[in-house]
C-alpha cells in the first residue's frame, strides 16, 4: 500500500518517454547522455531526496533553493577570500545548514505555524544572507575542485559517471534505506498520516519535525556544495526556483503532497523525467527551454489528478461507513 502503483506509473512514463526520445534521436540511448543527465541533475536529486522526507511528513520546505545559493557563496568566499581549506568550509556549511533547518522545524512545531510560511521566511532569510555575503559571482580555484571535477568512472560506451553523480546516487540510496528500513522513516510516514495519531502512538512529534527539516536543509547544503562543484563558482542568485523543481520531482515521483505516502525511488525517477525532458529539448534544438516548464506543469497536473482519483477511490468506502454510523 506504500504508494507502489504511482511509482510504477512514474517508471512507465520514464521508460516510455525515454523510448520515444530514443526512437527520434538514437544517440540519446547512450551512457554518455545518461551520464551527463545524472551529472546535470545531481544537485536536484540530492535536494529532492530531502524534500521527499518533508513532504511525506505532511510539510513543505520552500527554503532549499536559497540554502543552495547561500552554500555556494559561502563555500566560494571561504576558500577564495577567507583562506579556509575547502573541506573545513564544507563541514562548517553543512553544520550551519543543519542548524538552520532545525531552527525552522522548531519554529514550525513550537508555534504551531504552517510549514509553508515558516520556510518562506527561511527562503527570504537565506537568500538575503547570501546577497549580503556577495552579490557577484565568485569563481572557485581551489585544487580540490579540479580534482573532483576531473574524477569520473568510465562507463561502457564512453559515458562518464562523475563524482557529483556518484554522490547523488549514494544519497538517493541512503535516503531510500533511511525512509523505508528505519524507525525514523516509519515515523516520517506516521507524521504524514496524522500528526495527532502519531503523537498518541508515542512518536516524539516535536523532535521528528526538527529532525526532518534538519535533514532537508542538510541535504540542501550538500546540494549546494555539489552545485559549486558543478559550476566551479559561488553565486548568490544560483538555484533560484529549485524548490519548485524539487517539489515537482517529488510529486511526479508519486509522493502524496498531503503526506503519508511516497518513496525516495519515485522522487529519483521524477528527477530523471525532468532531466529527460531537458535533454530532449537540447537534442531537438528548435524548441526553447521554456517548453520544459510547460511539460513539467502538464506532468504535475497529470500526476496530481491521478493521485486525487486514487485517494478518492480509497476514501469512498470509509465515507460510506461514516455516513452509515451517524
Amino acid at each position, binding site marked *: 500500500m506504500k504508494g507502489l502503483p504511482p511509482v510504477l506509473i512514474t517508471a512507465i512514463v520514464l521508460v516510455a518517454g525515454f523510448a520515444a526520445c530514443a526512437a527520434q534521436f538514437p544517440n540519446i540511448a547512450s551512457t554518455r547522455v545518461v551520464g551527463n543527465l545524472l551529472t546535470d541533475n545531481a544537485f536536484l536529486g540530492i535536494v529532492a531526496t530531502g524534500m521527499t522526507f518533508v513532504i511525506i511528513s505532511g510539510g513543505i520546505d520552500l527554503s532549499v533553493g536559497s540554502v543552495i545559493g547561500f552554500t555556494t557563496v559561502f563555500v566560494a568566499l571561504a576558500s577564495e577570500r577567507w583562506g579556509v581549506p575547502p573541506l573545513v568550509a564544507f563541514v562548517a556549511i553543512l553544520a550551519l545548514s543543519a542548524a538552520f533547518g532545525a531552527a525552522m522545524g522548531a519554529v514550525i512545531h513550537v508555534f504551531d505555524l504552517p510549514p509553508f*510560511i515558516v520556510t*518562506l521566511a527561511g527562503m527570504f532569510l537565506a537568500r538575503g544572507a547570501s546577497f549580503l555575503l556577495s552579490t557577484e559571482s565568485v569563481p572557485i580555484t581551489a585544487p580540490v575542485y579540479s580534482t573532483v571535477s576531473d574524477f569520473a568512472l568510465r562507463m561502457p560506451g564512453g559515458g562518464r559517471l562523475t563524482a557529483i553523480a556518484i554522490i547523488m546516487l549514494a544519497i538517493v540510496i541512503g535516503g531510500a534505506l533511511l525512509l523505508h528500513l528505519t524507525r525514523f522513516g516509519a515515523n516520517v510516514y506516521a507524521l504524514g498520516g496524522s500528526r495527532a495519531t502519531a503523537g498518541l502512538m508515542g512518536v516524539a512529534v516535536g523532535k521528528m519535525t526538527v529532525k526532518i527539516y534538519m535533514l532537508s536543509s542538510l541535504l540542501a547544503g550538500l546540494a549546494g556544495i555539489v552545485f559549486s562543484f558543478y559550476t566551479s563558482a559561488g553565486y548568490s542568485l544560483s538555484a533560484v526556483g529549485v524548490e*519548485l523543481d524539487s517539489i515537482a520531482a517529488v510529486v511526479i515521483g508519486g509522493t502524496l503532497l498531503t503526506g503519508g505516502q511516497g518513496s525516495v525511488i519515485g522522487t529519483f525517477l521524477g528527477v530523471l523525467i525532468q532531466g529527460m525532458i531537458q535533454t530532449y529539448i537540447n537534442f531537438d534544438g528548435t524548441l526553447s527551454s521554456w517548453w520544459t516548464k510547460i511539460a513539467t*506543469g502538464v506532468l504535475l497536473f497529470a500526476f496530481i489528478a491521478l493521485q486525487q482519483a486514487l485517494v478518492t477511490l480509497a476514501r469512498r468506502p470509509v465515507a460510506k461507513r461514516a455516513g452509515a454510523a451517524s
Partner: protein
Amino acid sequence: MTALLPRRGLAQIFALIVILAIDRAVSPQFFDLRLQDGRLFGSLIDVLNRGTPVALLSLGMVLVIATRGIDLSVGAVMAICGAIAASLADSHGLPVVLAAALGAGLVCGLWNGFLVAVLGMQPIVATLILMVAGRGIAQLITEGRIVTFSSPDLVWLGNGAILGLPVPVAIALGMLLLTGAVVRGSALGLLIEATGGNARASELAGVGTRAMILAVYVWCGVCAALAGVIAAADIMGADANNAGLWLELDAILAVVIGGTSLFGGRFSLVLAVLGALIIQTMNTGILLSGYPPEFNLLVKAVVVLAVLLLQSPKLSGLAGIATRLRGTKP
C-alpha cells in the same frame, strides 16, 4: 478572539507610521509632494505607485486565503496577462487589449478554482501547476523575447494621471472600493468567511461553498491580470521571465501582515492593502537609506517571522513555550 476585534488594524497602522517615521529620518524630503504637469510627485506617491501590483494581488489573495486556500500562481498569471497585453497593444485598441488580458486572467482563475473546488485538490498543489507552467506559457506568447510596445493608451495606464494621482494608484483604489462594496456590501464576505471557517458545516447550512471557492480564485486571477497589465504598461514591455517574479510571496506576506489568518475564516481587505503598503514603504526606505536593496529580503524575513509569532495561537508568554517543549518529550 472577540476581545481582539476592536483592536484590529491598530497594529498595522502603528507599524506603517513607525516605518514612515524611519523613512522620514533617513530621507528628510520623504513627505515632500509637488504638482507637476497635473500629476503629484514625491516619495509618498512613489510608494503608492510601486506598491500597486502587490496591493492588487493582495486584494484577490486575501479572499482566497479567507476560504483557507492560497494562490501561488498570481506571479505567473501576471506574466501571462502582461505578455498578452504587450503583444496586442500596438495592433488593437485599449478595450480589446484589456478585455483579452483580463479574460486570460479570468480563465487562469477558473482553472485554479476548478482544480480546488471541483476536483478537490489542495490549493497549494493546484496552483503550483500554473505557477510552474504559467511562465512557460507566457514565454510562448512572447516567443521568448521581451515584447515592447508604444501604444499611448496602454502607456497611459502605467504612467498617466487622474486628478493628480498616478493611474495605477487610482485603479487599485477603485478595485479596493469595488471589491469592498461587493463582499462587504452584501452577505458574500460572510459566506466566504464561513467557507474558510468550516467548509463542510457551511455546505450543510446551505452555503454554496463550491461557487464561493470558484469565485474567489476567479477574482484573484482577474486582480493578477490587472496587476500584470499595469506592470507591463509601467515598463512599456512584457518580460515573461521577470514580470511578477516572486510577487505571489509578497502578496501572501501582505495578507499575513494585514492580520488575515492563513487558516481562513476571517479577512480584511483594507488591512491587506495596508500590508502591501507597509512592504513597499520598507522597500523604498531601504533604497532611500542607501543600503543595498539586498537588505530587503532579510528585513522581509524578520517581518514575516515577527508577524507569525504574534499571530501564533501558541504564543502566550514564555511559560506557554516551556510547557509546549515539555509536552513534546515522549
